[in-house]
């Protein structure tokens, strides 16, 4: 019973983390059909930005809540700038090329950004633990939960709700849905696809950076944190169905729970449980859980 509830809570926390890093990736893929390897860089930049912000507020002795908000704001701001630069400066030049070529463009961008981090922040690692430590913990039965983890789950839930609301009830969201559904028709009906692309990419970048920012207090912000996140987010998105927000949510939950169960019950398989689940899902549903194969017409 204790193990079961531990698996559930751990799974939920891990799923929250996965969802936050995967939602931006799946959004960009859904609208632009770009599998963005540079998403890992957004994550890393967000984390470095958050660490810088935490450094500023710790020195200034501000209250923790302000520090937390400053951290998120800094992360998102970096995502905004980075997103605009990449979309306007690089991706614009390769629209219309093969999907796979664009993946490689983002891979090249990722390589370059890895070293830009060294140029800006140097090779040393940064700590940003203050928000998490000051959040404290609560005891539920025998389990001790970090309040920060609860905040993380809340943020993920909020993002999911926000995404649902935005896509369903806002003008821009409905526009996006149209573009996802049928790009040519959308263009024919006068949707400014160029603008939609820019805005989507920037939002995706901000979400990626936000992922890094909220995770920064839990980890040591160091070189190479982006690499791990890319493959993880890919796996989640592939399981859920690329381009599907609800897919990212369900994918994150599946991976989160499976991994937590593996750690508690059979720790030997933890290393490949994610890829195992991914391969399994792809074998049964080649396009992921939430995307149906499109029948081909003659």
């Amino acid at each position, binding site marked *: 019973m204790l193990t079961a509830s531990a698996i559930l809570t751990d799974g939920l926390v891990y799923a929250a983390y996965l969802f936050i890093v995967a939602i931006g990736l799946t959004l960009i893929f859904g609208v632009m059909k770009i*599998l963005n390897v540079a998403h890992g860089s957004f994550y890393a930049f967000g984390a470095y930005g958050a660490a810088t912000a935490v450094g500023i507020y710790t020195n200034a002795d501000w209250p923790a809540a302000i520090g937390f908000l400053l951290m998120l704001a800094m992360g998102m701001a970096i995502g905004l700038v980075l997103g605009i630069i990449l979309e306007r400066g*690089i991706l614009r*030049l*390769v629209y219309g*090329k*093969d*999907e*796979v*070529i664009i*993946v*490689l*463009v983002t*891979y*090249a*961008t*990722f*390589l*370059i950004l*890895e*070293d*830009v981090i*060294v*140029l800006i922040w140097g*090779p040393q690692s940064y700590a940003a633990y203050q928000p998490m430590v000051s959040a404290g913990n609560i005891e539920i039965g025998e389990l001790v939960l970090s309040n920060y983890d609860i905040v993380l789950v809340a943020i993920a839930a909020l993002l999911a709700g926000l995404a649902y609301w935005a896509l369903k009830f806002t003008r821009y969201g409905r526009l996006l849905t149209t573009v996802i559904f049928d790009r040519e028709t959308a263009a024919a009906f006068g949707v400014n696809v160029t603008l939609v692309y820019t805005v989507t990419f920037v939002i995706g970048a901000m979400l990626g950076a936000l992922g890094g920012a909220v995770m920064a207090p839990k980890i040591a912000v160091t070189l190479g944190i982006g*690499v791990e996140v890319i*493959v993880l987010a*890919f*796996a989640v998105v*592939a399981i859920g169905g*690329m381009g599907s927000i609800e897919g990212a949510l369900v994918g994150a939950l599946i991976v989160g729970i499976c991994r937590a169960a593996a750690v508690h019950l059979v720790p*030997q398989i933890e*290393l*490949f449980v994610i*890829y*195992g689940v*991914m*391969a399994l899902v*792809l*074998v049964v549903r*080649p*396009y992921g859980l939430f995307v149906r194969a499109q029948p*081909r017409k*003659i």
Partner: protein
Amino acid sequence: MGGRGQLAGGLMFLFAAAAAPLLPDWVVSLVTIAFANALVVLGLVVLWRAGLVSFGQALYYCIGAYAVSLTARWTGFTDAFALVLIGGVAAGLMAVLIGFLLARYREIFFAMLSLALSMILYGVLVKSESLGSTDGFSVATPTFLGYAPHRDALGLALYWLTLGVDAIGAVLVGVYFRSVAGALAAPIRDNEIRVEFLGVSVTSIIHIKVVVAGILGGLGGALAALAIGHVDPNMAYWTTSGGFVFVTILAGAGSVAAAFVGSLVFEAVRSFAFDVMPQLWQMTLGSVLLLTILFLPDGLGSLVARLKRRREAKS
């Protein structure tokens, strides 16, 4: 791919073979590794012509490498020719199996599934302490039909072996490209329905491509294992696959020779970046990739084609 191209390729091959003893050792070993990797790239070219990209080609590379080192380790058998063959066959068999699954997928899904499969192999190897886990283990010094060279002579022998395997591979891939199964690449990318209605199973043609690419990947991994003298699970990691795709883009899918030139250029650029900017080599590589895609969308191979066209226009 006319007779002139084959003649030029043959001459280049002979020149590369003859020049080796005059080259500095470090160049010989750099070229050996570049040409071993070129076989993997050639496999990716086979797939790419049909519009398929594998982000998991390191799977076969790694299987080829481990097959070589494990065979040498368990049986004490060190003949390089046989070991390379074993590497290719082992990877080929794996590709036959995986092909049943993979041949149904296209585009990004093909890429993602191949990535997942190679990461599973990585996870299994990391978990296998008896195989040295992440540290990997060393590969026995190979012999060549009883001849057991050392130091410089070993380097040259491996270089010539790699060159020989490359030449055979290039010729066979050339023949394959001219066969129905090989030429059905652009047609599959263009219009699978038409291919099916001409009476061909697209799935089985792609399956063949996966196997051809797998065998080439295994041969490349086997040669690399002998040249490096060490194998480790990183050979299956997705960044290794990413590197191969990188070279494929750099080389372009235009010709067989481009894979070799591209691989050589990549290895030289990488080594140069390590030498000159030890902390910014990723940026250098990323920039080269980006500039290639932007300004040479068909890869280095297209430079030759462009030159040829200009010459034809003049005459």
